């Protein structure tokens, strides 16, 4: 046996050594994740990196590091600024999309012209040049740039009738924009009146009156007028609020129909109010 081993060592020592070293290499290779090996690698790598860093600093002794560092800092700051601006651009894009969505979904307008006016203290109506062909139907609101005008009471194929706010048959749910108190506004033949408001409710001269959230015929927050007078009834418990409209109905020639189809059930209730 000894002779055989000595024979191998003498004639194949290169191969034996090769096998030993290769097996050792492969064993170490498979042990790379072990903590002991990791510690050795970290120690060796750390020390060698210190040497290479020192050599690098010697090599860079003639390089102006201050200027380089300043430029690097400036570069990083510019990169961050670019990222910030990119974020702002994205936010701006999103906000613009949101605004467009709100605009197009809430206020689709149909422009129209007043063909004729029925002037009366109780039956103030307009006839306009848009109808069912223009997707205008009964119950739609009518406004102009100043505020509320009325609503479509009848719609034909090419024409429609507008019952204005100065028509006694029109009753609209409105809100005091400052205090949030709501009521029903109607035309009494001389003024727009919000009737039967409890006297302790907050209505003051100059308060802005807008359409109410409760109305499904008219979109909310459409300007109607301002409070000009508060009259307390004989009992003292209720009061009537007088409203001066923003719109001068006598001078109107162009207006817009709001293309909002109201809920049929609530619409019928409000139309009942109109019929009273």
């Amino acid at each position, binding site marked *: 046996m000894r002779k055989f081993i000595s024979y191998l060592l003498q004639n194949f*020592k*290169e191969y034996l*050594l*090769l096998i030993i*070293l*290769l097996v*050792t*290499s*492969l*064993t*170490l*290779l*498979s*042990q*790379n994740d072990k903590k002991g*090996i990791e510690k*050795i*690698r970290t120690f*060796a*790598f750390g020390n*060698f990196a210190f*040497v*290479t860093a020192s*050599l*690098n600093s010697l090599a860079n002794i003639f390089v102006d590091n201050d200027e380089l560092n300043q430029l690097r800092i400036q570069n990083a700051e510019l990169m961050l600024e670019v990222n910030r601006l990119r974020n702002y651009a994205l936010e701006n894009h999103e906000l613009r999309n949101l605004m467009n969505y709100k605009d197009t979904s809430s206020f689709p307008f149909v422009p129209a012209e007043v063909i004729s006016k029925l002037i009366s203290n109780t039956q103030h109506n307009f006839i306009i040049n848009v109808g069912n062909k223009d997707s205008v139907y009964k119950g739609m609101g009518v406004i102009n740039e100043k505020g509320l005008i009325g609503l479509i009471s009848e719609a034909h194929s090419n024409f429609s009738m507008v019952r204005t706010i100065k028509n006694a048959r029109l009753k609209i749910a409105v809100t005091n924009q400052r205090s949030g108190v709501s009521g029903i506004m109607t035309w009494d033949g001389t003024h727009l009146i919000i009737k039967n408001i409890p006297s302790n409710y907050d209505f003051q001269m100059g308060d802005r009156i807008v359409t109410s959230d409760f109305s499904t015929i008219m979109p909310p927050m459409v300007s109607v007028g301002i409070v000009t007078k508060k009259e307390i009834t004989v009992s003292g418990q209720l009061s009537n609020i007088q409203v001066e409209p923003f719109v001068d109905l006598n001078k109107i020639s162009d207006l817009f129909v709001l293309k909002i189809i109201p809920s049929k059930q609530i619409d019928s209730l409000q139309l009942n109010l109109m019929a009273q």
Partner: protein
Amino acid sequence: MRYQDLILPILISIPLIIIQIVVVPFFSIDNIGPDLLLILVVYFAVKFGQINGLTVGFIIGMMFDLSSGGLLGSAMFSKTLAGFIAGYFHNETSVDTNLSTYNFSLIVLLCAIIDSATYSILGGSLVNLSTAALIINNGLFPGLYTSALSMPLFIFRSKRSFN
């Protein structure tokens, strides 16, 4: 094998490892660069024989693995194998011929191809390398680069022996 024959290459390998890690990357083309350590291993293997070559390859490979932060064992294996193959070209009567002529570059080319390919396989075992990529990109190109860089060594040595 004498101890002096081991100490000298190890001492030379220390600055060579620094150059290999710090300077050579500047001259690499598409992650392909020369292997200075392999030239050293081949030189000592051709000059002193297989045992010396594979031992030097093993030690230098280990030093390189530890200093470069690579997988411990990958360069050890490939350099050991390269040193062993280079040792086949050791001949007492033709040492100067092999080290001072184009033979040296050819030996380096052969060993570099084997060394680079083996190192790629062991170091990137999770990467799916095709056979062609393994031979050409990770074997032949680095081998040619290393071989080209070994030319000044034998030219310098041949002039010196001529003088």
